[in-house]
């Protein structure tokens, strides 16, 4: 605060105000130079911070390409397609989870919303063969459950973790009731399975779908007033209220959008797997949380974000895929997944503290 005298009052602010750091002292020339070289270095550090996970992803991929255990199986076109396509469903669900998480709300029901949507879609489409009706059904299921979650959290003021844990449990019950615990015999129309397994220019359609959904989510969050308000609520709910944001409405919107994306995730699952099993929903929840949390370790360090989530999904996928191909015992995957999650979130926390203090 030693340069208070130089830049006094609203009109008297000099041009340097936008350049110098808050601690700059009167020897402006020298300091400016120092500041510039500092920003050069800072930019590199910022880049590394932002893309560390992506770099790590590339390094792991290169490793599996040359490691003797996996060099014949990992870097094949078929494996790459499986890798990209198999994670699309988790990716969409992770994006759904990301939205309430931005408002500091946990949605534990994401997996079972997708699971229920998958079961219902599989049953409906097997019976009627009407794909459009199946799409509408998946989206409706997501919207309705997301809406109920939103009402419980914002109107009944139940903690989001508890509300969605309860909802998830109920959904699990519905799934069990509808299926009797057995995968329903399914007769999925080809048009739907073609979508799930098809390629465009050699790239799985379902992966492209994920990228499109991610792009839409990204633009809504980063370039619209709505997205900005969601970030503001997540940053400081009390302050958001006092600048006139409809905090309850925004939180509700994220739950509804999460439900919608999870419904879509269920539909994509049916299209890719050609059916649905009653247990599938539960297996989505934890990986989705891992990816969403890890997103704070990349692209926008310290903030949950869309592209960070996508990178995290594929970071974990490459890791698991490579390990599976190398033939290690399955428990190794658990060690690696758990360790990666903890290390990633710890990294994000450190980055966040560095940036804000």
């Amino acid at each position, binding site marked *: 605060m030693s340069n208070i005298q130089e830049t006094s009052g609203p009109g*008297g*602010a000099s041009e340097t105000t*936008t350049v110098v750091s808050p601690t700059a002292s009167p020897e402006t020339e020298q300091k400016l130079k120092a500041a510039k070289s500092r920003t050069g270095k800072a930019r590199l550090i910022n880049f590394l911070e932002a893309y560390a996970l992506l770099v790590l992803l590339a390094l792991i991929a290169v490793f599996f390409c040359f490691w003797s255990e996996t060099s014949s199986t990992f870097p094949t076109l078929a494996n790459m397609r499986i890798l990209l396509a198999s994670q699309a469903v988790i990716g969409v669900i992770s994006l759904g989870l990301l939205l309430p998480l931005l408002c500091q709300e946990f949605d534990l029901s994401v997996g079972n919303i997708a699971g229920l949507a998958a079961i219902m879609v599989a049953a409906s489409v097997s019976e009627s063969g009407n794909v459009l009706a199946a799409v509408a059904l998946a989206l409706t299921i997501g919207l309705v459950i997301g809406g109920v979650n939103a009402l419980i959290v914002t109107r009944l003021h139940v903690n989001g973790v508890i509300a969605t844990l309860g909802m998830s449990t109920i959904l699990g019950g519905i799934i069990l009731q509808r299926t009797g615990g057995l995968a329903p015999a399914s007769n999925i129309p080809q048009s739907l399975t073609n979508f799930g397994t098809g390629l465009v220019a050699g790239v799985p359609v379902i992966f492209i779908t994920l990228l499109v959904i991610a792009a839409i989510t990204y633009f809504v969050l980063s370039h619209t007033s709505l997205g*900005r308000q969601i*970030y503001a609520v997540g*940053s400081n709910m009390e302050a958001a209220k006092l600048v006139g944001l409809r905090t309850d409405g925004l939180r509700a919107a994220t739950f509804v959008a999460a439900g919608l994306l999870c419904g879509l995730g269920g539909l994509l699952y049916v299209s890719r797997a050609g059916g649905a099993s009653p247990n599938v929903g539960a297996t989505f929840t934890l990986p989705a949380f891992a990816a969403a949390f890890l997103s704070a370790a990349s692209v926008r360090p310290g903030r949950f974000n869309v592209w960070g989530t996508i990178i995290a999904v594929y970071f974990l996928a490459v890791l698991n895929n490579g390990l599976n191909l190398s033939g290690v015992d399955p428990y190794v995957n658990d060690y690696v997944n758990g360790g990666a999650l903890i290390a990633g979130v710890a990294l994000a926390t450190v980055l966040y503290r560095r940036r804000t203090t």
Partner: protein
Amino acid sequence: MNEHMRSESASAEPGSRVALAAEDISKTYGATRALDEVSLEVSSGAIHGLMGGNGSGKSTFIKMLAGVVTPDQGRLALQGEWIEARSHTPARAKASGLHFVHQQNSTFPDLTVAENLALGRGFESTTLKSIDWKAQKARSRRVLDRFEIDVAADTHMVRLSPAAQMMVAIARALQDQDETDERGVLVLDEPTASLPKHEVDVLLTALRRYAADGQTIIYVSHRLEEVTAIADEVTVLRNGRVASRLVGAEISHDSLVAGITGSVAAKQAGTVPRGSGVVDSRVHLSHVAGFRETALTLRRPSLTEVDDETLLLRAGEIVGVAGLLGSGRSRLLKQIFGAVPRDDLEVTLNSGPVPPSDVRAAMKKGIAFVPENRLREAALPELSIAENLSVTCLSDHSRAGWIKPSRERKAAQRLIKEFGVRAPSASAPLTALSGGNQQKVILARWLQRRPTVLLLDEPTQGVDIGARNEIHELVRAAAAAGTAVLVVSSDFGELASLAHRAVVMSGSEIVDSIDGPLTEDILNDVVYAQEKSL
């Protein structure tokens, strides 16, 4: 017990009747002399009032006693032994029998009274180290009986009245005292700040009883009425110095006000410059100064005694809201803004009435609000400076819901320059800035909307002196541009230098108004006069 006369400075061995003495305590923070050779003596078994306005040094003195603040020089006598005040520590304060009870509720509302009492000292345990609840309850019962607190030991704290909660906190601090013969000193820091009137009496009665039993009490308060009611002796601090020492009958409302405000002659309450007589001439003056257009009117129809128009704010004027802690100043601002229920308050702008409990409507009508607690109520810490600025104007920066990044960035850069924010860049997170610069960002966030009415709650709290002056300039500039400003500050010096006139609050009501020119002394006089007339 209050017949002792004492010399101006306690340099000799402290007498046996002195429970605590301090000599020549000084403490400097940067350029501010918070304590300037403060000496005082607290008689054993007396209730010693420690008074002073904001910034008088009483908080620093209490923190020094607690060993939290290390003074630059001075000596302390605790239990009859002089020590260098610099070597005083929290552990030493505890060992020498100083017990502190602060205004903030230091008890745990969800635990029982017995648990709260035990948390201060450890639970009674059985030989197996599990908690012996029976013994615990019996002990709690004894403590409650001794302090004459009429509650059951297994009542949850939250169900107690505020006064009873404070008494439990006091009992917790003092519960071990009778086991040693040494009587310690109980230091109460604004114990009544959050108590309603009738509860205050309950607490004061209890304190008198404890003192009669020989308990020495230092009673820190800004409430004249309470101090005159219970103190045996009083030390008044002003600007870090001892302004007066009063004993027994010398303690009166007028002598305390004289000490706190430094007025040469103690004013009779009746001759204190109350607003009513001066209003007319000042209203006339206001017209001359150009404050003609009414910006905001507050009405409280249920108030029948005075005319129901409680506050009128005109475009371009800065009105201060003066009052003591807990007088409802901050709440008034939030009521106007619609962030808390209005009760029967009616808010009207020149553009029409402002509906209650609707922040968005208030904003649309042209009200802006900079809250007191920046971190909790204003800052969006993870968001960039540009994002923090644009959050009140998102629709201006976007078309059909899409934000135009260049427009947002340019607006941020313009505001950063205009408001003299020292920032590395508009995209840096808000937390990269110093407190003063953060506050300028919050101010800019609202002033860019060109509000009709700007509500400021403690606008320069925790801000360094340079930024403080800059913020004052920014507020003056906004007023000059036609914004009506209502500013709350505990710092009467700030109000005096910033505001054209002031209103005084007490007990959640506007009770008086002072028409300029304001000085710190006038504000002190009127505010403390209100305390007496309550």
